[in-house]
């Protein structure tokens, strides 16, 4: 006998994601028959706000597009402006930017690990990972003056040079995090409960993944090697030695494995960056921010964020303010269209679990 369908509203209070969105589920028993995403709880009109701010005033806005990982936004806006204007960025600034981006990736993965485990009911993991993430946040605080919103990468380079002794501190933190990874393996990745929950759940069809626009760890979790850092290297990624891990399967487990291996890669990248970072200028000063006319032109730039390929399209009409800044983030694809597809057939208790595995960031959906 066919079970009666019921409507279930999941969210909008953080159903396994950082930020507010809601999933309206049609369930039969405890199986999802249809999923409909509802966003709009977090719309702050970032793109529109930027049209009424000067270029430099836009930097404190873009970082808010993704709370757990603000830096790719700053990186994208900075690089878009630099491309339109043809502004050179000092070599040292490029290295510092890569360090920031990788630190931010590590911090984002730490937070993801906590969320992924939390949605599976493993509450010790978030206690650990949020605590360990704080060591990265402390580094950000020391470098940028802000713990969460850094407002540090901006057009022309970065805002301040590394404080004295900072590089050593970063290396020490990397050593510590590396030493923690085996413990996370034992607690979380090898955990029978997690494996049982993750394997074969939330499968993305490898043949459809590219067509659907899946990027980042979910795509690499389908066995497709795609990473902006390798495909179209920006800043100094082409001078660094690292691999892009992939994993076959397309399920939550594969995505977790990809992220787990990438954490090792990020630690290695940060060490290389510190090793190779040249001395010199860190900022190629832009004109007075109130009177800076960026020449007419447009640019599309992309960065590999922790959630995947993250693009900005910026247009200047030669004025003081951006004519248009369009944010093309992975969260829209992952959190709206992809989620609606792969939730069908899932167990209710896996919904938040699957959402978290996709790295959805609602403020970035709404921009």
């Amino acid at each position, binding site marked *: 006998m066919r079970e009666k369908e019921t409507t279930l509203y999941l969210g909008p209070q953080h159903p396994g994601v950082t930020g507010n969105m809601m999933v309206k589920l049609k369930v039969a028993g405890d199986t999802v028959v249809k999923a409909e995403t509802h966003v709009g709880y977090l719309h702050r009109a970032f793109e529109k706000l930027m049209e009424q701010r000067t270029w430099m*005033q836009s930097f404190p806005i873009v970082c808010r597009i993704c709370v757990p990982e603000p830096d790719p936004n700053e990186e994208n806006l900075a690089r878009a402006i630099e491309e339109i204007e043809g502004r050179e960025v000092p070599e040292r600034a490029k290295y510092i930017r890569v360090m920031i981006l990788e630190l931010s990736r590590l911090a984002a993965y730490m937070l993801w690990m906590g969320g992924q485990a939390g949605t599976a009911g493993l509450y010790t993991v978030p206690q650990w990972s949020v605590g360990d993430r704080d060591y990265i946040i402390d580094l950000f605080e020391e470098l940028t003056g802000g713990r969460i919103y850094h407002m540090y990468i901006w057009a022309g380079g970065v805002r301040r040079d590394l404080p004295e002794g900072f590089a050593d501190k970063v290396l020490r933190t990397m050593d510590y995090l590396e030493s923690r990874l085996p413990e996370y393996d034992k*607690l979380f990745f090898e955990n029978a409960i997690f494996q049982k929950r993750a394997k074969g759940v939330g499968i993305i069809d490898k043949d459809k993944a590219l067509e659907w626009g899946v990027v980042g760890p979910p795509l690499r979790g389908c066995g497709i090697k795609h990473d902006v850092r390798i495909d179209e290297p920006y800043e100094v990624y082409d001078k660094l030695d690292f691999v892009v891990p992939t994993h076959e399967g397309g399920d939550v487990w594969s995505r977790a494995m990809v992220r787990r291996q990438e954490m090792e890669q990020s630690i290695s990248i940060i060490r290389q960056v510190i090793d190779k970072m040249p001395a010199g200028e860190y900022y190629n000063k832009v004109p007075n921010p109130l009177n800076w*006319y960026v020449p007419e032109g447009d640019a599309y730039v992309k960065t590999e964020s922790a959630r995947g390929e993250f693009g900005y399209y910026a247009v200047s009409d030669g004025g003081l303010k951006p004519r248009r800044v369009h944010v093309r983030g992975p969260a829209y694809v992952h959190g709206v269209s992809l989620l609606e597809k792969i939730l069908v057939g899932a167990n209710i208790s896996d919904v938040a679990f699957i959402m978290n595995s996709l790295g959805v960031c609602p403020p970035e959906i709404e921009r």
Partner: protein
Amino acid sequence: MALNLKGIISPYNALKQAGRKPHTVQYPYKKKEAADRYRGFHFNDIQECIGCGTCSTICQNHAIDMIEIEGLEVGPGDSGLRPRVDNGRCCWCALCVDSCPTGSLSLTKDYLYVSEDPNSFLLIPGIDNPDGQNRKSWISNGNSLLDYKRIPMRELEGQERVKSFAEVVLGYNEEEARTEAARCLGCGICTENCPVHMHIPEYINAIARGDDKMAVKIIYDNNPLGETCGKVCTRRCEEICAFTKRGEPIAIRWLKRYATETVENEKMIEEIVNPTILPPNGHSVAIIGAGPGGLTAAYYLAMRGFNVMVYEAKEHAGGMIMYGIPKYRLPLDSLDKQIEYLQSIGVEIKFNTKVGKDISFDEIRQHHEAVYIGIGFEVPYKLGITGEDASGSIQAINFLREINREKHIEIGDKVVVIGGGNVAIDAARVSRRLGAEVTILYRRRVEDMPADWEEIEGAEDEGVIIHPQAIPLEIITDENNKVKAIKYANAEMIPDPKGGRPRPKIIEGDEHILEVTTVIGAIGQEADYSFLPDDIKEKLEINRGRIVVNEDRQTSIPWLFAGGDIANRRADAIGAIADGFNAVKGIEKFILKEDK
């Protein structure tokens, strides 16, 4: 499915952690000390702040407004306002700090504030949290977003300059002007020091965005001699520019010069300014003296529909800017262009008409309802030493006038100029161009010289020797009563017990003789009021050589207005222009009130 034994056992490894010290929570509880660069609540050094409001302008959250502070001592170049931060809106991005021109604003390590009263989230940094001084963390030192260095002005080399009367300053090219203009924050602090309160931020902004025509139009709002000011203004505005606390002020004068120089002739000025000229109102005003003040009054009166007649004693308009300023600073064609434009919109000038000689003052009074006097200081002060009447002893003001008329004056090869003002420097630099060796004798120290420091530097570059603390005693002449040498004594500076500027005192016995061919006196001028009828002179209030006027430049005789050197102590072109501009309001008020 096989039993995942490892997966069941390994998580228990976590139990090992139980004995470890917690890493984020500290016992006993200790408040976390923020990092050295932490961006916490604002602090403002109230004494350093000038209230320019850039923090408020740059804030993309509109979290900062500028408010008046009670009991704050407000000096020149200070708006008297101070920022107030709404901590409910602030995002601590510190754009305000990185774009604070004085560096007074900073963020502190303080990050915790709890209150149920949302109004208490309004923080006046530095006043509400004076102890923030010791907790400053995010400062802009060396990391400012602003550019404190001005674009240097290109000039002829010193050796090249003395060969001719070619203009020394070469002016900004377009790129330099745009870059320099873009430095401006548009705070408008400068306008306070400009006697006529020109719309400085507006025209600089127009230059920055590439609209030179708009810049010219804005300049003509309250200054019809913008190009002159662009070349020779004493630019008091730059003294209080917000950038001066930490760097070089915006080159306001050179930017004005750039904008006005883009206009090639008087027709183009008219097209750009496109003035609204009111139909004739049937009233008539006389202006005595076609100097900068008289011309300004005439221009704005003509635009308001008045019939204006300017009486000028000499053959050319401009007064001191024509006859007093050497052509290497203000070329004739530039001045002609500006005056022709004034004439083209209806300013009538009667040349070679000296009031009191060619026409009587009473006659002028009969034909016009109001009179504006702007005759300037034309009579030089005497040095008051023996030998002053000898041939070869001349007055700078007469010397400059004749040179500007392209007359030849024989000065020989060794010239001494006495004085330290701009006139002295001008006379010295002109003498260098005539091929003489020049020494300036000045009573006080170089830093006391009233002349513009750029002029002083320019003179030194051209080989003028400046001899400070030297007091002339006697001009020694030969048997033909011709200047042979000058005797002077060195002086020491005696501090003024009342706190005024130190006075020079001759050092007894420290006398020297300098052989010279010409002595040029440049110790100041005064006015010649002899053209005024006695009854007017009686009624007219004159204080220490200057006519007393109110803020409408109205004298003690209601229909008589005065401005320029004879009424204000600034003794510069922009001061005279301001007088002319303000007199227009006064004259309009006076005549049109009579109408009612």
